[in-house]
């Protein structure tokens, strides 16, 4: 740890940066409080918590700019067991979250093109292309990403992450730790699968200790797991509040408020944030405020969001009385909470990290959607056929047929890509969505 780096971290992040971001948040909140309610808008005003979420995410990336040389830096996949690294005080970057941020801020295409210029095919995941573009050019809307001292890759969301992290390992020349999670073709993991994942989780520790230069504390780890569990439970509660009619939030709100549970799971501040968000949502319910002013149709979303169209799609649907009340994607970070057990950290984590919806079979995903349609009283399902995310998308044709024929709800397969706007045909999508809304109205 260099003194210069520590001083920069102290001055630019801890003192000036955090103070400026806190001030900005108060300004945003005051502006939101003063903004008159516009009854002609299809969407009610955004959650006040959004300002705090933006502050937290900005602080996170601001610290990242100054983290090198002060804290060990790990880059991890979104489904990775980051709690182990948190217990060793790693500063953690989630390249997928960074890519999504680039997508939402319309920076992704240029970064994808930079990766393509270097030879990466347009047919590979656009998150990967976005982040490889950042690695190659240094361009990012967050200013700077700290290079990793350690890469942690968990295959519970796809195999793509392993191909991608092999490229990062080569580029940055740092250790790559793999947690390989056998795909769950069956409902319940088998004992040899659990044992395999558990052993790999335990084997993270010595590598991470060496990189961090400190000893792993079981006690601290248990605290982090307990905190992650608490935050995940709150997140699930928030999402479940959308069962209420009218739903106090949309899945698009959930997409944007997902950042802390992905990036800062295990921090007390994250738990506090979701607690206050839940309170705000409960106030909305008590006041009879719905996220969509005239909620006529309730819809379930499957797959990742279309990051570069979140705002416009949300408004377009709301104008037609459609509230996307839930998504299989955002639930993935909540439904793991009941499996977490701070008294059996490694054992329960082995099961938790094999359980994400992306690591389960197409039939189990259809069952999950069927259940969610019932619980959220959804009138239809939009399945985002995501060119970039094959493991999430393969199976959707049969799932759509199952929803239409077995559940009896309209289901639309919407062709797009989560981060690459070149794969989204605006007019074609609008036409298909119009037809879908009409079907629900019948």
């Amino acid at each position: 740890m260099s003194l210069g780096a520590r001083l920069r971290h102290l001055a630019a992040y801890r003192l000036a940066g955090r103070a400026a971001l806190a001030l900005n948040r108060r300004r945003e909140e005051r502006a939101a409080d003063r903004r008159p309610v516009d009854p002609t808008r299809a969407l009610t005003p955004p959650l006040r918590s959004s300002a705090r979420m933006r502050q937290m995410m900005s602080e996170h990336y601001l610290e990242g700019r100054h983290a090198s040389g002060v804290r060990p830096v790990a880059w991890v996949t979104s489904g990775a067991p980051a709690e182990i690294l948190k217990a060793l005080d790693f500063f953690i970057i989630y390249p997928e979250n960074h890519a999504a941020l680039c997508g939402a801020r319309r920076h992704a295409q240029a970064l994808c093109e930079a990766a393509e210029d270097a030879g990466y095919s347009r047919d590979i995941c656009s998150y990967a292309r976005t982040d490889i573009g950042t690695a190659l050019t240094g361009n990012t809307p967050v200013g700077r990403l700290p290079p990793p001292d350690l890469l942690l890759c968990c295959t519970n969301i796809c195999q793509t992450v392993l191909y991608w992290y092999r490229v990062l390992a080569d580029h940055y020349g740092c250790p790559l730790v793999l947690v390989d999670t056998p795909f769950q073709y069956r409902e319940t993991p088998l004992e040899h699968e659990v044992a395999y994942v558990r052993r790999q989780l335990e084997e993270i520790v010595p590598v991470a200790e060496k990189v961090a230069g400190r000893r792993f504390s079981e006690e601290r780890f248990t605290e982090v797991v307990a905190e992650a569990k608490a935050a995940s439970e709150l997140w699930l509660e928030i999402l479940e509040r959308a069962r209420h009619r009218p739903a106090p939030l949309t899945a698009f709100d959930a997409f944007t408020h997902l950042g802390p549970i992905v990036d800062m799971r295990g921090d007390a501040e994250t738990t506090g944030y979701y607690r206050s968000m839940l309170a705000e949502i409960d106030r909305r319910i008590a006041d009879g405020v719905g996220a969509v002013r005239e909620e006529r149709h309730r819809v379930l979303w499957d797959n990742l969001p279309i990051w570069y169209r979140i705002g416009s799609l949300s408004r377009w649907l709301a104008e037609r009385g459609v509230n996307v009340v839930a998504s299989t994607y955002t639930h993935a970070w909540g439904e793991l909470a009941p499996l977490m057990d701070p008294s059996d950290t490694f054992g329960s984590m082995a099961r938790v990290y094999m359980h994400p919806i992306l690591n389960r079979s197409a039939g189990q995903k259809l069952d999950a959607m069927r259940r969610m349609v019932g619980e959220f009283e959804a009138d239809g399902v939009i399945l985002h056929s995501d060119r970039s995310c094959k493991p999430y998308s393969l199976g959707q044709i049969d799932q759509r047929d199952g929803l239409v024929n077995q559940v009896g709800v309209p289901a639309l397969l919407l062709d797009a890509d989560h981060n690459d706007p070149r794969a989204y045909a605006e007019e074609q999508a609008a036409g298909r969505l119009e037809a879908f809304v009409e079907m629900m109205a019948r």
Partner: protein
Amino acid sequence: MHRVVAAIAATQTNLRPAAFFDENGSGMSVTAQLPNRREILTEVRRSGYRPVAVLPYHYPRALLRAHGFHPVELWGPPDVPRDEGSRHFQPYTCDIVVRATSFLLRGGLDGVDALLVPHTCDALQGMGSVVGDFGPVAPPVLTLYLPRGERPADREFLVAELRRLAAALEEIGGRTPSVVDWDEAFGAEDAADRALAGLYDRRAGLAATDREFYTVVRAREYLTAEAFSALAGSVPEGEPPGGVPVMLSGIVPEPMTLFDHLAKMGARVVADDLACGGRRRYDPPAGGDPFERTADRILSGPPDPTRGAPIAARAARLVEQMEKTGARGLLIYDVKFCEPELFDVPLLRSRLVEEGFGVLHVEVEMGTELPQQTLTRIEAFVETLQ
């Protein structure tokens, strides 16, 4: 020179090819009379084995055999339209998955006792999941999760996973292998593995065109171990056709007319890193627990992106193979949408160019013929190597 006459006398010798390469003074030509997969299915059943259709590409051959199963691999096939498969998979799904699904739905392998889908990539994961859960195909679907590393934990897991697969095979076939069954299965399959490795080792001294050579290599996808060993052993020694030496990388060289085009362009394939070829040059261990032995065989293959090998290790092997065989350039020949291959391309290219090798990457959609645009690119590449 030699004329290839690979004929099967299955009814007489339990799927052993009767004659392979005959002397003929009329020049080198191929009359590949190998049986097709459907004929093999019939003969396998007649000889008391249960046929199992297998998707690419690492799987336990001896374990299947010991349980009374014979694998017939599915790599598309390229001449089957995507239509039926497209009713289950989006257009951005790789051809192997979509066409294999079409093929199965068209009854291409009716009569197999099971379908084995190794977890090779996300696309095959999707196929195993869809055909297993939504049942568009009739036979029971078996899966095999292949670990993405070679750590002790990976090996231990693979051993347990193989035991699980064995239990599923026992359930379908009703046969628990005896020690004799295991010994017989390892004896035959290890010999076939050695025969495949031997083919590669002897390649520079084999009087076979690339098309002939890969017809023989790929016969391992469906012939019995004995038939394959005999076929591989029958490739005559002699001077191979000339041409600019190149190495071929990718999943599968379909359509096989690729080799005819390469020959016409003046190129000769002297080494490969193909999933259906060189990546299955296993080094089977001798003796020991059958499941551990089977796991070790799979883990003994060369660096492979689908098994999580570092890109640097893969690049180093390519360089070593190219130096050893005198290849001047690498043709990376990828099936479209194949992520495990596509991610490695830029770094492989950069390492090989640093070493002074030419590199060309093409992506192809499976079909019966290659598009002219692709052929033009390959031709230009071969010219630069000359």
